[in-house]
């Protein structure tokens, strides 16, 4: 597969703050790539470097095989961008803003534009000042998706959208992917990325700490198993890669490293399985693995990579399952 975006060793400082600290990022053509991290991790800075709005201090970046700083204008004809915080011109209507941005990108597909306005339930006759945050966001999304851009850079695009519109947004992104477009989707909403992304990169303090498919990442983390057995399950603790075993009258619950799942389930069958529930790690847990120390520094108990963080948030998601 060809690479739509290749970034290596990117550095960018603003005065004393190092926003990007040796960032590497690879996005393949035709994939939806989730770009995950909390506020201030460097997501927006990365995207702005990719847009040629900021100039990197060191490192290289290539978009569609070109340099984003030197070839900014030519590249922009092939990409569309949705900022996380959309500001509109107070005296222009939403419809005018959409047309303006689309035309400056190189033309508007009127039919697609009108269809998107309809689907996102946007009133294009209102002036920019009169739009709520969510509606300003819709203006930018429609302008980006109405274009024939082959690469979409979306920086927390759904901040401020209601759940119904969130669903519309997901449909539209699936369609874009089906049409062969490449999408870089930055977000801190994990559920969204989980649904849409083929691959995910997690950014922290200006560096990518983990990158891969969700499957690969889950392999690296622990799955939580809950089972009811005929005879009380014992001796699980001795197996390698099993953590936090808790037994309670024929019920057992533990976390197991991705590579040790097979051994753990084999062991369980010795006690006669009546029911078995397995929870794959959610993105929340993946994130917590990398941000656990920050949370604990802030006085939260989960984290520290000893599994207690995972156990705790699994307990929370259990509630949602039942």
């Amino acid at each position: 597969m060809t690479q739509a975006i290749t970034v290596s060793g990117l550095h960018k400082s603003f005065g004393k703050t190092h926003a990007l600290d040796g960032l590497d990022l690879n996005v393949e053509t035709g994939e939806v790539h989730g770009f995950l991290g909390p506020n201030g991790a460097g997501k927006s800075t990365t995207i702005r470097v990719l847009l040629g709005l900021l100039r990197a201090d060191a490192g290289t970046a290539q978009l569609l095989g070109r340099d984003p700083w030197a070839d900014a204008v030519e590249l922009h004809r092939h990409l569309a961008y949705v900022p996380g915080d959309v500001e509109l011109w107070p005296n222009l209507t939403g419809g005018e803003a959409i047309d303006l941005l689309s035309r400056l990108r190189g033309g508007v597909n009127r039919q697609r534009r009108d269809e998107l306005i309809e689907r996102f339930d946007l009133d294009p006759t209102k002036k920019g000042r009169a739009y709520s945050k969510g509606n300003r966001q819709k203006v930018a999304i429609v302008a980006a998706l109405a274009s024939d851009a082959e690469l979409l850079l979306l920086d927390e695009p759904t901040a401020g959208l209601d759940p119904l519109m969130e669903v519309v947004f997901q449909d539209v992104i699936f369609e874009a992917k089906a049409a062969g477009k490449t999408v870089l989707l930055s977000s801190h909403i994990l559920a969204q990325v989980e649904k849409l992304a083929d691959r995910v990169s997690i950014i922290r303090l200006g560096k990518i700490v983990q990158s891969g498919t969700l499957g690969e990442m889950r392999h690296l983390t622990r799955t939580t198993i809950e089972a009811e057995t005929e005879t009380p399950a014992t001796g699980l603790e001795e197996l390698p890669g099993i953590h936090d075993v808790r037994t309670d009258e024929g019920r057992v619950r533990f976390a197991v490293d991705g590579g040790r799942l097979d051994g753990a389930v084999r062991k369980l069958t010795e006690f006669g399985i009546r029911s078995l529930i397995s929870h794959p790690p959610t993105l929340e847990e993946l994130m917590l693995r990398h941000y656990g120390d920050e949370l604990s520094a802030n006085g939260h108990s989960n984290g520290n990579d000893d599994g207690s963080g995972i156990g705790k948030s699994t307990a929370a998601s259990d509630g949602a399952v039942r």
Partner: protein
Amino acid sequence: MTTATATTQAPAPAGAAAGGNTLAGTRTLIRFNLRRDRVRLPVWILALFLGTLATAGNYKELYADPKDRAGVVETMDSPAGLAMSGPRHYLDDYNFGSMLGHQMLGFMAVLVGLMSVLIITRHTRTEEETNRAELVRSTVVGRHAHLAAALCVAVLANLVLALLLAFGLSGMGIDGIDLSGSLLYGFDHAAVGIVFAAVAAITAQITAHSRGASGMALAVIGVAYVLRAAGDVGSNGALSWLSPIGWVQRTYVYVDNRWWPLLLCLALAVLCAAAGFVLSTRRDVGAGLRATRLGRPVASDALGRPFGFALRLHRGMLIGFGAGLFLMGVMYGSILGDAEDMLQDIDEIQEALQEIGGATIAESFASMVMVIITVVAVVYVVMAALRPRAEETSGRAEPLLATGLSRTRWVGSHLAVAMTGGTVLLLLAGLGFGISGAASTGDSGLFLKLVGAALAYAPALWVTVGVAVVFFGWFPRASAAAWIVPVYAFVVGYLGQILQFPDWMNNLSPLGHVPQLPAADLSWTPLVLLTLIAAALVWLGLEGFRRRDLETN
């Protein structure tokens, strides 16, 4: 019920009264506003105060000899002199005090008005526009608290300035500047400042945008100034009585020390402020009285091109300045005939004019007016040329520059609007001045001369645009420094004539190099040079912008 509320009640903010009080929280807001303005207001007040002290000191140096003062009286007793300063009555006893009242008061009134308008807009409309007011209003804060607090701060600032001036000036021990006169002089400033603060209290209700609110209030100041200028030059001064600036000048401070015109100011201020409060109840938070209408669902063809888009963003301001400058030209043109009549009998002046190259009185007055008109156009040009900076900091530039629009074209489109717009403004002012000037003097040949004289200043405007874009490209955080150009041009072009600045100071202003048509002869060299300098500055600024990071939040 009392017990129930007592147990659930959150700690009440200090100074906040019970519900239903539309002024609840005003005191807290006043303190908050003063905290926010803790640098801005002292700078304004000290600049105005020290500027006045320096001028008074200057008078003592320059005009120590009564003969020198008599010379000033002769210069001032002309339409140009009176239009720039104040009513003739001051000239009867021209001591240091009356010089101050005559020459400085009108000019200072504009600055004090500007300060007051900006205070009101900043603490009312800007707060609403940024949605900060909404957050504050959700607490125990009454409906009228924002406006009341802003007015209190404006009144306070004006009173502090008044007292500083009163005691500062009387403490200098200059002949003719005594305490009772200085008290009135100080309160003249306060009165006119408070009037314009109250005017801004109305304009802040009308439009939903702080730029529009300040603009309208500044236009009122401009009209007030032009009315008093026309009235003071005209035969009976009736027009001056329509202007608050005219009122304070007619206290004849240091001459007659009349306090009663200040009552007019007070009455007008109370009336305007009350109107502001009433109007504010007729609208929603964040909205203006003028409802925002729905617009076109699709963009016109012109909007899709960078120049058309930039023009759309600048349109409102350009129309406002265009109308204002045209009217200003008409006003000044209409007193051109009076100027001629008034002075043609005075032989000395005729001789003096013959010596400087045979210009007529009307022509020399006209070249004076051109400087004032151009300074206003320069103000527009700076606002327009700094528009890309405003777009950048508000985050609106980012999505645009992520399209196929290059940085150079984007900034270039704004600069093109600033340059052509500024030139059109000069043309409009020249047309207004030319039409009414030719009519009032009965000299139809003057029309083309005046239009040409106005257009001769276009290269100076372009240089100003160049200065602004250099700041924008290389020192974006210091972009506001481009305001130095109009401020300096105003001080040199206006006060320079009174205070007799040396030539080199005049040469630092781009306006100083433009031939003073129609009184002087046209010479093309400085105009061509200014145009070349402008082109070089624009190129330099664009190069800087191409090399720097876009600032984002």
